[in-house]
Protein backbone atom coordinates (compact mmCIF):
# COMPACT_ATOMS: atom_id res chain seq x y z
CA UNK A 1 0.00 0.00 0.00
CA UNK A 2 2.71 2.41 0.92
CA UNK A 3 4.69 1.52 -2.18
CA UNK A 4 1.73 2.52 -4.27
CA UNK A 5 1.70 5.78 -2.42
CA UNK A 6 5.29 6.49 -3.15
CA UNK A 7 4.76 5.74 -6.80
CA UNK A 8 2.01 8.29 -6.95
CA UNK A 9 4.22 10.81 -5.26
CA UNK A 10 7.00 10.26 -7.75
CA UNK A 11 4.52 10.48 -10.53
CA UNK A 12 3.74 14.01 -9.50
CA UNK A 13 7.27 15.10 -8.88
CA UNK A 14 8.26 17.93 -11.14
CA UNK A 15 5.02 17.91 -13.04
CA UNK A 16 4.02 21.35 -11.95
CA UNK A 17 5.68 23.17 -14.84
CA UNK A 18 4.39 20.72 -17.35
CA UNK A 19 0.93 21.18 -15.99
CA UNK A 20 1.28 24.92 -16.17
CA UNK A 21 2.24 24.65 -19.84
CA UNK A 22 -0.80 22.59 -20.61
CA UNK A 23 -3.16 25.19 -19.27
CA UNK A 24 -4.20 26.82 -22.50
CA UNK A 25 -6.90 29.42 -22.44
CA UNK A 26 -10.14 28.58 -24.12
CA UNK A 27 -10.11 31.45 -26.61
CA UNK A 28 -6.37 32.01 -27.09
CA UNK A 29 -3.30 30.23 -28.33
CA UNK A 30 -2.03 29.44 -31.80
CA UNK A 31 -3.89 29.89 -35.06
CA UNK A 32 -7.64 30.13 -34.78
CA UNK A 33 -8.37 26.59 -35.97
CA UNK A 34 -6.17 25.19 -33.26
CA UNK A 35 -7.92 26.94 -30.42
CA UNK A 36 -10.29 24.80 -28.36
CA UNK A 37 -13.06 27.30 -28.83
CA UNK A 38 -12.98 26.83 -32.56
CA UNK A 39 -13.22 23.06 -32.40
CA UNK A 40 -16.05 23.15 -29.93
CA UNK A 41 -17.77 25.76 -32.05
CA UNK A 42 -17.63 23.57 -35.16
CA UNK A 43 -19.15 20.58 -33.39
CA UNK A 44 -21.64 22.83 -31.65
CA UNK A 45 -22.77 24.37 -34.93
CA UNK A 46 -23.18 20.97 -36.50
CA UNK A 47 -25.21 19.56 -33.61
CA UNK A 48 -27.30 22.71 -33.35
CA UNK A 49 -28.07 22.49 -37.04
CA UNK A 50 -29.20 18.89 -36.66
CA UNK A 51 -31.33 19.77 -33.66
CA UNK A 52 -32.95 22.71 -35.39
CA UNK A 53 -33.64 20.63 -38.49
CA UNK A 54 -35.28 17.95 -36.36
CA UNK A 55 -37.30 20.62 -34.63
CA UNK A 56 -38.44 22.14 -37.89
CA UNK A 57 -39.24 18.94 -39.75
CA UNK A 58 -40.38 16.31 -37.30
CA UNK A 59 -43.43 18.05 -35.86
CA UNK A 60 -44.60 19.16 -39.27
CA UNK A 61 -44.21 15.84 -41.02
CA UNK A 62 -44.54 13.20 -38.33
CA UNK A 63 -46.97 14.70 -35.89
CA UNK A 64 -50.58 13.79 -36.38
CA UNK A 65 -52.65 16.25 -38.35
CA UNK A 66 -54.12 19.19 -36.56
CA UNK A 67 -57.80 20.04 -36.28
CA UNK A 68 -57.72 22.69 -33.61
CA UNK A 69 -55.85 25.75 -32.49
CA UNK A 70 -54.66 23.77 -29.47
CA UNK A 71 -52.95 21.23 -31.66
CA UNK A 72 -51.46 24.06 -33.71
CA UNK A 73 -49.91 25.47 -30.59
CA UNK A 74 -48.64 22.03 -29.57
CA UNK A 75 -46.81 21.87 -32.88
CA UNK A 76 -45.50 25.40 -32.48
CA UNK A 77 -44.39 24.62 -28.93
CA UNK A 78 -42.42 21.60 -30.07
CA UNK A 79 -40.73 23.63 -32.79
CA UNK A 80 -39.88 26.49 -30.44
CA UNK A 81 -38.65 24.25 -27.64
CA UNK A 82 -36.51 22.16 -29.96
CA UNK A 83 -34.98 25.21 -31.53
CA UNK A 84 -34.22 26.66 -28.10
CA UNK A 85 -32.94 23.39 -26.69
CA UNK A 86 -30.76 22.45 -29.66
CA UNK A 87 -27.96 24.99 -29.12
CA UNK A 88 -27.92 24.37 -25.38
CA UNK A 89 -27.60 20.62 -25.60
CA UNK A 90 -25.15 21.00 -28.44
CA UNK A 91 -22.78 22.72 -26.00
CA UNK A 92 -22.51 19.48 -24.02
CA UNK A 93 -22.01 17.46 -27.18
CA UNK A 94 -19.47 19.98 -28.43
CA UNK A 95 -17.34 19.92 -25.32
CA UNK A 96 -17.57 16.17 -24.83
CA UNK A 97 -16.83 15.34 -28.45
CA UNK A 98 -14.02 17.86 -28.75
CA UNK A 99 -12.38 16.46 -25.62
CA UNK A 100 -12.60 12.99 -27.04
CA UNK A 101 -11.16 14.01 -30.40
CA UNK A 102 -8.46 16.28 -29.09
CA UNK A 103 -7.27 14.64 -25.90
CA UNK A 104 -7.72 10.98 -26.48
CA UNK A 105 -4.54 9.36 -27.67
CA UNK A 106 -5.10 6.62 -30.20
CA UNK A 107 -4.99 3.23 -28.63
CA UNK A 108 -5.41 4.51 -25.10
CA UNK A 109 -8.32 2.14 -24.72
CA UNK A 110 -6.03 -0.83 -25.14
CA UNK A 111 -3.41 0.43 -22.79
CA UNK A 112 -3.19 -0.92 -19.28
CA UNK A 113 -1.63 2.19 -17.91
CA UNK A 114 -3.43 5.47 -17.79
CA UNK A 115 -2.30 8.48 -19.76
CA UNK A 116 -0.65 11.27 -17.88
CA UNK A 117 -2.82 13.23 -15.57
CA UNK A 118 -4.78 16.03 -17.13
CA UNK A 119 -4.91 19.61 -16.06
CA UNK A 120 -5.86 19.99 -12.43
CA UNK A 121 -8.87 22.11 -13.21
CA UNK A 122 -11.06 22.04 -10.14
CA UNK A 123 -13.65 24.46 -11.33
CA UNK A 124 -14.08 27.65 -13.20
CA UNK A 125 -16.24 30.30 -11.58
CA UNK A 126 -17.14 32.35 -14.64
CA UNK A 127 -18.04 29.24 -16.66
CA UNK A 128 -20.34 28.02 -13.89
CA UNK A 129 -21.97 31.41 -13.55
CA UNK A 130 -22.55 31.73 -17.28
CA UNK A 131 -23.91 28.20 -17.45
CA UNK A 132 -26.29 28.87 -14.56
CA UNK A 133 -27.49 32.19 -15.94
CA UNK A 134 -28.22 30.67 -19.32
CA UNK A 135 -30.21 27.88 -17.68
CA UNK A 136 -32.20 30.34 -15.62
CA UNK A 137 -33.00 32.50 -18.64
CA UNK A 138 -34.09 29.45 -20.60
CA UNK A 139 -36.30 28.19 -17.80
CA UNK A 140 -37.97 31.59 -17.59
CA UNK A 141 -38.57 31.63 -21.33
CA UNK A 142 -39.98 28.11 -21.33
CA UNK A 143 -42.16 28.81 -18.34
CA UNK A 144 -43.63 31.98 -19.81
CA UNK A 145 -44.23 30.29 -23.11
CA UNK A 146 -46.08 27.47 -21.40
CA UNK A 147 -48.14 29.76 -19.21
CA UNK A 148 -49.06 32.00 -22.13
CA UNK A 149 -50.15 29.16 -24.36
CA UNK A 150 -52.02 27.46 -21.56
CA UNK A 151 -53.99 30.51 -20.57
CA UNK A 152 -54.84 31.42 -24.16
CA UNK A 153 -56.01 27.86 -24.83
CA UNK A 154 -58.09 27.32 -21.79
CA UNK A 155 -59.82 30.69 -21.47
CA UNK A 156 -63.51 29.96 -21.91
CA UNK A 157 -65.24 31.99 -24.54
CA UNK A 158 -68.76 33.28 -24.35
CA UNK A 159 -70.11 31.24 -27.23
CA UNK A 160 -68.53 27.94 -26.20
CA UNK A 161 -70.81 24.94 -26.44
CA UNK A 162 -70.70 22.58 -23.51
CA UNK A 163 -71.05 18.87 -23.91
CA UNK A 164 -70.60 15.85 -21.70
CA UNK A 165 -68.13 13.09 -22.35
CA UNK A 166 -68.69 9.83 -20.50
CA UNK A 167 -65.98 7.23 -20.35
CA UNK A 168 -66.65 3.70 -19.27
CA UNK A 169 -65.02 0.36 -19.81
CA UNK A 170 -64.50 0.45 -22.79
CA UNK A 171 -66.57 2.92 -24.70
CA UNK A 172 -66.83 6.67 -25.03
CA UNK A 173 -70.27 8.21 -25.18
CA UNK A 174 -70.84 11.84 -25.98
CA UNK A 175 -73.89 13.72 -24.79
CA UNK A 176 -74.88 16.93 -26.50
CA UNK A 177 -76.14 18.84 -23.49
CA UNK A 178 -79.73 19.95 -23.64
CA UNK A 179 -80.47 18.12 -26.89
CA UNK A 180 -80.41 14.79 -25.02
CA UNK A 181 -78.57 13.31 -27.98
CA UNK A 182 -76.05 10.62 -27.16
CA UNK A 183 -73.58 9.31 -29.66
CA UNK A 184 -70.50 7.19 -29.72
CA UNK A 185 -69.03 9.38 -32.40
CA UNK A 186 -67.88 12.87 -31.63
CA UNK A 187 -69.25 15.45 -34.08
CA UNK A 188 -68.24 19.05 -33.51
CA UNK A 189 -68.97 22.32 -35.28
CA UNK A 190 -65.99 24.18 -36.69
CA UNK A 191 -64.75 27.50 -35.30
CA UNK A 192 -66.64 27.19 -32.06
CA UNK A 193 -64.96 26.58 -28.78
CA UNK A 194 -66.25 23.43 -27.21
CA UNK A 195 -65.96 22.69 -23.51
CA UNK A 196 -65.92 19.00 -22.69
CA UNK A 197 -67.20 18.03 -19.28
CA UNK A 198 -65.57 14.68 -18.81
CA UNK A 199 -66.50 12.01 -16.31
CA UNK A 200 -66.37 8.27 -15.96
CA UNK A 201 -68.77 5.54 -14.97
CA UNK A 202 -66.21 3.18 -13.51
CA UNK A 203 -62.44 3.61 -13.59
CA UNK A 204 -60.14 6.37 -14.73
CA UNK A 205 -59.96 6.89 -18.49
CA UNK A 206 -57.99 9.39 -20.50
CA UNK A 207 -60.10 11.43 -22.89
CA UNK A 208 -57.82 12.25 -25.78
CA UNK A 209 -59.25 13.68 -28.99
CA UNK A 210 -55.88 13.34 -30.70
CA UNK A 211 -55.95 15.97 -33.42
CA UNK A 212 -57.61 18.46 -31.11
CA UNK A 213 -54.43 18.50 -29.02
CA UNK A 214 -56.11 18.41 -25.63
CA UNK A 215 -56.39 15.71 -23.05
CA UNK A 216 -58.00 15.21 -19.68
CA UNK A 217 -58.75 12.20 -17.56
CA UNK A 218 -62.26 10.93 -17.04
CA UNK A 219 -62.46 10.34 -13.31
CA UNK A 220 -65.26 8.47 -11.63
CA UNK A 221 -67.06 10.65 -9.15
CA UNK A 222 -65.71 13.90 -10.51
CA UNK A 223 -66.20 16.02 -13.57
CA UNK A 224 -63.20 17.56 -15.29
CA UNK A 225 -63.32 20.10 -18.08
CA UNK A 226 -61.14 20.85 -21.04
CA UNK A 227 -61.70 23.28 -23.87
CA UNK A 228 -60.82 22.81 -27.53
CA UNK A 229 -61.31 25.04 -30.53
CA UNK A 230 -61.68 22.99 -33.71
CA UNK A 231 -60.58 25.07 -36.66
CA UNK A 232 -60.37 22.64 -39.54
CA UNK A 233 -63.02 20.46 -41.13
CA UNK A 234 -62.31 16.77 -41.21
CA UNK A 235 -61.94 13.59 -39.26
CA UNK A 236 -60.08 13.10 -36.05
CA UNK A 237 -59.42 10.25 -33.62
CA UNK A 238 -60.51 9.90 -30.04
CA UNK A 239 -58.40 7.56 -27.97
CA UNK A 240 -58.16 6.51 -24.37
CA UNK A 241 -54.80 7.50 -22.95
CA UNK A 242 -55.10 5.94 -19.53
CA UNK A 243 -54.82 2.18 -19.10
CA UNK A 244 -58.37 1.15 -18.24
CA UNK A 245 -58.34 -2.62 -18.32
CA UNK A 246 -58.78 -5.45 -20.75
CA UNK A 247 -59.99 -3.63 -23.87
CA UNK A 248 -58.13 -0.37 -23.33
CA UNK A 249 -56.58 -0.62 -26.80
CA UNK A 250 -60.01 -0.68 -28.41
CA UNK A 251 -61.47 2.15 -26.41
CA UNK A 252 -61.31 4.55 -29.25
CA UNK A 253 -63.59 6.14 -31.71
CA UNK A 254 -63.52 8.74 -34.45
CA UNK A 255 -64.86 12.23 -34.63
CA UNK A 256 -65.66 14.77 -37.28
CA UNK A 257 -65.40 18.50 -37.40
CA UNK A 258 -68.25 19.80 -39.56
CA UNK A 259 -69.74 23.15 -40.44
CA UNK A 260 -72.29 24.66 -38.11
CA UNK A 261 -75.06 23.84 -40.57
CA UNK A 262 -74.03 20.24 -40.95
CA UNK A 263 -73.78 20.00 -37.20
CA UNK A 264 -77.34 21.17 -36.68
CA UNK A 265 -78.46 18.87 -39.44
CA UNK A 266 -76.71 15.96 -37.78
CA UNK A 267 -78.33 16.69 -34.44
CA UNK A 268 -81.74 16.87 -36.11
CA UNK A 269 -81.08 13.60 -37.88
CA UNK A 270 -80.28 12.02 -34.53
CA UNK A 271 -83.69 13.08 -33.33
CA UNK A 272 -83.16 16.32 -31.47
CA UNK A 273 -86.00 18.80 -31.58
CA UNK A 274 -85.31 22.09 -33.39
CA UNK A 275 -85.91 23.95 -30.16
CA UNK A 276 -83.37 21.90 -28.28
CA UNK A 277 -80.84 22.34 -31.08
CA UNK A 278 -81.36 26.07 -31.00
CA UNK A 279 -80.95 26.08 -27.24
CA UNK A 280 -77.79 24.07 -27.53
CA UNK A 281 -76.02 25.80 -30.37
CA UNK A 282 -77.29 29.35 -30.37
CA UNK A 283 -78.10 30.26 -26.85
CA UNK A 284 -74.60 29.52 -25.76
CA UNK A 285 -73.71 32.69 -27.62
Amino acid at each position, binding site marked *: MSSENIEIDEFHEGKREEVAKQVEPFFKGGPIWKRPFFGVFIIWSFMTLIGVLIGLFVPVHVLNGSSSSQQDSVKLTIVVFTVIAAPVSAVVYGIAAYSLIKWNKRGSGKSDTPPEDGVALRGHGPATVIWLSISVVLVVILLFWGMMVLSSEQTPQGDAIRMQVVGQQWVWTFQYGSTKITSTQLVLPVDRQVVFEVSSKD*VTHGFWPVQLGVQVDANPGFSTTIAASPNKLGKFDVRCSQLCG*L*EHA*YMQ*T*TGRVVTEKQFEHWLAQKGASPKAIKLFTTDAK
Partner: protein
Amino acid sequence: MKRAIGALVTVLIGAAIFVAIGIGFHAQKYQSVAPTTKAVDTGTTQMVNGKSLKVYTLNLYSYPDSTGTFDASTGAPAGTKPVAIHKNGNPGWPAYGPSNVFQIPAHALVKVHWEQRDSGGSLNNSWFAKPTGTVGPVTLNGKEIPASGIDPSQVGHTFTVRAEPGVDPHFFLNVAAPLNPGNPTDTSTPQVMEFSFVSGNKGLYEWNCEFPCGNGIGGFGAVMSAYGFMSGYIHVV
Protein backbone atom coordinates in the same frame (compact mmCIF):
# COMPACT_ATOMS: atom_id res chain seq x y z
CA MET B 1 -13.26 -16.59 -31.61
CA LYS B 2 -13.87 -18.57 -28.46
CA ARG B 3 -15.30 -15.50 -26.86
CA ALA B 4 -17.46 -14.80 -29.88
CA ILE B 5 -18.94 -18.28 -29.60
CA GLY B 6 -19.48 -17.76 -25.90
CA ALA B 7 -21.28 -14.50 -26.53
CA LEU B 8 -23.36 -16.08 -29.24
CA VAL B 9 -24.30 -18.98 -26.98
CA THR B 10 -25.36 -16.55 -24.25
CA VAL B 11 -27.57 -14.70 -26.69
CA LEU B 12 -29.05 -17.96 -27.95
CA ILE B 13 -29.76 -19.14 -24.40
CA GLY B 14 -31.41 -15.79 -23.72
CA ALA B 15 -33.49 -16.11 -26.87
CA ALA B 16 -34.46 -19.66 -25.96
CA ILE B 17 -35.63 -18.60 -22.50
CA PHE B 18 -37.59 -15.79 -24.08
CA VAL B 19 -39.22 -18.10 -26.59
CA ALA B 20 -40.09 -20.60 -23.87
CA ILE B 21 -41.75 -17.96 -21.70
CA GLY B 22 -43.47 -16.53 -24.76
CA ILE B 23 -44.90 -19.89 -25.74
CA GLY B 24 -46.07 -20.33 -22.19
CA PHE B 25 -47.94 -17.05 -22.25
CA HIS B 26 -49.34 -17.71 -25.67
CA ALA B 27 -50.56 -21.17 -24.71
CA GLN B 28 -51.86 -20.20 -21.31
CA LYS B 29 -53.74 -17.08 -22.12
CA TYR B 30 -54.61 -16.97 -25.73
CA GLN B 31 -56.04 -20.32 -26.55
CA SER B 32 -59.44 -19.96 -28.15
CA VAL B 33 -62.12 -21.35 -25.91
CA ALA B 34 -63.74 -23.22 -28.77
CA PRO B 35 -63.39 -23.35 -32.56
CA THR B 36 -64.36 -20.20 -34.43
CA THR B 37 -68.08 -19.92 -35.04
CA LYS B 38 -68.84 -19.12 -38.65
CA ALA B 39 -72.02 -17.41 -39.76
CA VAL B 40 -74.20 -19.57 -42.02
CA ASP B 41 -75.20 -18.41 -45.51
CA THR B 42 -78.97 -18.21 -45.69
CA GLY B 43 -79.67 -16.53 -49.04
CA THR B 44 -80.07 -12.91 -50.10
CA THR B 45 -82.42 -10.09 -49.26
CA GLN B 46 -83.55 -6.82 -50.71
CA MET B 47 -82.70 -3.75 -48.63
CA VAL B 48 -84.83 -0.63 -48.32
CA ASN B 49 -82.51 1.28 -50.63
CA GLY B 50 -82.91 -1.39 -53.28
CA LYS B 51 -79.55 -3.04 -52.84
CA SER B 52 -79.44 -6.77 -52.62
CA LEU B 53 -77.37 -8.19 -49.77
CA LYS B 54 -76.30 -11.68 -48.83
CA VAL B 55 -77.82 -12.89 -45.59
CA TYR B 56 -75.88 -14.79 -42.96
CA THR B 57 -77.18 -16.17 -39.71
CA LEU B 58 -75.22 -16.23 -36.52
CA ASN B 59 -76.21 -18.07 -33.34
CA LEU B 60 -75.12 -16.63 -30.06
CA TYR B 61 -75.61 -17.89 -26.51
CA SER B 62 -74.88 -16.42 -23.13
CA TYR B 63 -74.63 -18.76 -20.17
CA PRO B 64 -74.56 -18.12 -16.43
CA ASP B 65 -71.88 -20.72 -15.77
CA SER B 66 -68.84 -21.26 -17.94
CA THR B 67 -68.12 -24.67 -16.42
CA GLY B 68 -71.26 -26.12 -17.97
CA THR B 69 -71.62 -27.99 -21.20
CA PHE B 70 -73.10 -26.91 -24.48
CA ASP B 71 -75.85 -29.41 -25.25
CA ALA B 72 -79.52 -29.59 -26.14
CA SER B 73 -80.63 -28.19 -22.79
CA THR B 74 -78.49 -25.11 -23.24
CA GLY B 75 -79.25 -24.32 -26.83
CA ALA B 76 -77.49 -26.76 -29.13
CA PRO B 77 -79.68 -28.63 -31.62
CA ALA B 78 -80.98 -31.90 -30.25
CA GLY B 79 -78.67 -34.83 -30.82
CA THR B 80 -75.49 -32.75 -30.66
CA LYS B 81 -72.72 -34.16 -28.55
CA PRO B 82 -72.27 -32.05 -25.40
CA VAL B 83 -69.08 -29.96 -25.37
CA ALA B 84 -67.65 -27.71 -22.69
CA ILE B 85 -68.82 -24.11 -22.93
CA HIS B 86 -65.40 -22.83 -21.99
CA LYS B 87 -62.11 -24.70 -21.81
CA ASN B 88 -61.03 -22.89 -18.66
CA GLY B 89 -64.45 -22.42 -17.20
CA ASN B 90 -64.78 -20.92 -13.78
CA PRO B 91 -67.80 -21.50 -11.56
CA GLY B 92 -69.88 -18.37 -11.25
CA TRP B 93 -68.33 -16.78 -14.29
CA PRO B 94 -70.76 -16.33 -17.17
CA ALA B 95 -69.59 -16.94 -20.70
CA TYR B 96 -70.65 -16.52 -24.30
CA GLY B 97 -70.94 -19.42 -26.65
CA PRO B 98 -70.58 -21.44 -28.77
CA SER B 99 -67.26 -19.61 -29.05
CA ASN B 100 -65.87 -16.18 -28.37
CA VAL B 101 -64.50 -15.84 -31.88
CA PHE B 102 -66.94 -15.32 -34.72
CA GLN B 103 -66.45 -15.08 -38.43
CA ILE B 104 -68.77 -13.15 -40.73
CA PRO B 105 -68.40 -11.94 -44.30
CA ALA B 106 -67.94 -8.28 -45.13
CA HIS B 107 -70.85 -6.16 -46.37
CA ALA B 108 -73.52 -8.71 -45.67
CA LEU B 109 -76.69 -8.68 -43.65
CA VAL B 110 -76.04 -10.70 -40.52
CA LYS B 111 -79.05 -12.04 -38.66
CA VAL B 112 -78.26 -12.82 -35.07
CA HIS B 113 -80.22 -15.27 -32.99
CA TRP B 114 -79.18 -14.77 -29.39
CA GLU B 115 -80.34 -16.94 -26.50
CA GLN B 116 -79.66 -15.22 -23.21
CA ARG B 117 -79.84 -17.53 -20.20
CA ASP B 118 -77.98 -15.58 -17.51
CA SER B 119 -79.37 -13.44 -14.74
CA GLY B 120 -78.44 -9.78 -14.61
CA GLY B 121 -79.10 -6.38 -13.14
CA SER B 122 -78.57 -2.70 -13.73
CA LEU B 123 -76.31 -1.22 -16.40
CA ASN B 124 -73.59 1.28 -15.48
CA ASN B 125 -74.68 3.45 -18.36
CA SER B 126 -78.31 3.07 -19.33
CA TRP B 127 -77.42 4.17 -22.86
CA PHE B 128 -76.43 0.59 -23.61
CA ALA B 129 -79.98 -0.66 -23.13
CA LYS B 130 -80.85 0.89 -26.49
CA PRO B 131 -79.92 -1.03 -29.63
CA THR B 132 -77.44 0.79 -31.86
CA GLY B 133 -76.23 -0.09 -35.31
CA THR B 134 -78.99 -2.60 -36.02
CA VAL B 135 -81.01 -2.84 -39.22
CA GLY B 136 -84.72 -3.51 -39.03
CA PRO B 137 -86.62 -4.53 -35.94
CA VAL B 138 -85.05 -5.99 -32.83
CA THR B 139 -87.25 -8.64 -31.30
CA LEU B 140 -87.33 -10.12 -27.85
CA ASN B 141 -89.05 -13.51 -27.68
CA GLY B 142 -90.70 -12.69 -30.98
CA LYS B 143 -92.02 -9.29 -29.94
CA GLU B 144 -90.47 -6.10 -31.24
CA ILE B 145 -88.82 -3.99 -28.54
CA PRO B 146 -89.41 -0.21 -28.37
CA ALA B 147 -86.91 2.13 -29.99
CA SER B 148 -85.81 3.29 -26.55
CA GLY B 149 -84.55 -0.23 -25.88
CA ILE B 150 -85.12 -2.57 -22.98
CA ASP B 151 -85.27 -1.68 -19.29
CA PRO B 152 -81.71 -0.68 -18.31
CA SER B 153 -82.19 -2.05 -14.80
CA GLN B 154 -83.11 -5.51 -16.07
CA VAL B 155 -80.21 -6.31 -18.37
CA GLY B 156 -78.54 -9.67 -18.71
CA HIS B 157 -75.72 -9.01 -21.13
CA THR B 158 -74.92 -6.76 -24.04
CA PHE B 159 -73.25 -7.58 -27.33
CA THR B 160 -71.16 -4.55 -28.09
CA VAL B 161 -68.88 -4.45 -31.11
CA ARG B 162 -66.32 -1.93 -32.28
CA ALA B 163 -63.46 -1.83 -34.68
CA GLU B 164 -59.89 -2.49 -33.83
CA PRO B 165 -57.70 0.59 -33.89
CA GLY B 166 -57.33 1.89 -37.39
CA VAL B 167 -60.07 -0.19 -39.00
CA ASP B 168 -62.34 2.06 -40.97
CA PRO B 169 -65.26 2.67 -40.96
CA HIS B 170 -65.66 2.64 -37.25
CA PHE B 171 -68.04 -0.23 -36.93
CA PHE B 172 -70.34 -0.14 -34.00
CA LEU B 173 -73.10 -2.40 -32.85
CA ASN B 174 -74.72 -2.65 -29.49
CA VAL B 175 -77.64 -4.83 -28.43
CA ALA B 176 -78.67 -5.58 -24.88
CA ALA B 177 -80.60 -8.65 -23.85
CA PRO B 178 -82.73 -8.64 -20.72
CA LEU B 179 -81.96 -10.84 -17.77
CA ASN B 180 -83.45 -14.28 -17.52
CA PRO B 181 -86.37 -13.89 -15.12
CA GLY B 182 -86.52 -17.56 -14.24
CA ASN B 183 -84.50 -19.47 -11.75
CA PRO B 184 -80.90 -18.52 -12.55
CA THR B 185 -79.90 -22.18 -12.65
CA ASP B 186 -82.71 -22.98 -15.02
CA THR B 187 -81.09 -22.31 -18.34
CA SER B 188 -83.61 -24.11 -20.49
CA THR B 189 -85.87 -21.10 -21.01
CA PRO B 190 -83.79 -18.36 -22.56
CA GLN B 191 -84.60 -14.81 -23.51
CA VAL B 192 -84.35 -14.87 -27.29
CA MET B 193 -83.15 -11.72 -28.97
CA GLU B 194 -83.20 -11.47 -32.74
CA PHE B 195 -81.68 -8.64 -34.68
CA SER B 196 -79.78 -7.91 -37.88
CA PHE B 197 -76.92 -5.68 -38.81
CA VAL B 198 -74.87 -4.94 -41.88
CA SER B 199 -71.23 -5.88 -41.51
CA GLY B 200 -68.51 -3.40 -42.30
CA ASN B 201 -65.24 -3.65 -44.14
CA LYS B 202 -62.88 -6.57 -43.76
CA GLY B 203 -60.91 -6.52 -40.59
CA LEU B 204 -60.67 -7.65 -37.04
CA TYR B 205 -63.40 -6.41 -34.75
CA GLU B 206 -63.67 -6.62 -31.04
CA TRP B 207 -66.78 -7.48 -29.12
CA ASN B 208 -67.45 -7.45 -25.43
CA CYS B 209 -70.26 -7.26 -22.94
CA GLU B 210 -70.98 -3.87 -21.40
CA PHE B 211 -73.07 -5.21 -18.56
CA PRO B 212 -70.94 -5.11 -15.36
CA CYS B 213 -71.19 -8.80 -14.54
CA GLY B 214 -67.81 -9.04 -12.86
CA ASN B 215 -66.46 -8.14 -9.44
CA GLY B 216 -64.96 -4.96 -8.15
CA ILE B 217 -66.19 -1.45 -7.72
CA GLY B 218 -67.21 -0.94 -11.33
CA GLY B 219 -68.27 -4.54 -11.82
CA PHE B 220 -65.65 -4.93 -14.52
CA GLY B 221 -63.20 -7.06 -12.58
CA ALA B 222 -62.71 -10.82 -12.74
CA VAL B 223 -64.73 -12.29 -15.61
CA MET B 224 -65.00 -8.95 -17.39
CA SER B 225 -61.23 -8.49 -17.34
CA ALA B 226 -60.37 -12.08 -18.18
CA TYR B 227 -60.00 -12.53 -21.89
CA GLY B 228 -62.38 -14.98 -23.57
CA PHE B 229 -65.46 -14.94 -21.36
CA MET B 230 -67.17 -11.63 -21.98
CA SER B 231 -64.93 -10.57 -24.83
CA GLY B 232 -63.69 -11.85 -28.12
CA TYR B 233 -63.12 -11.15 -31.77
CA ILE B 234 -65.24 -10.94 -34.86
CA HIS B 235 -63.31 -11.59 -38.04
CA VAL B 236 -64.93 -9.88 -40.97
CA VAL B 237 -63.65 -11.65 -44.07
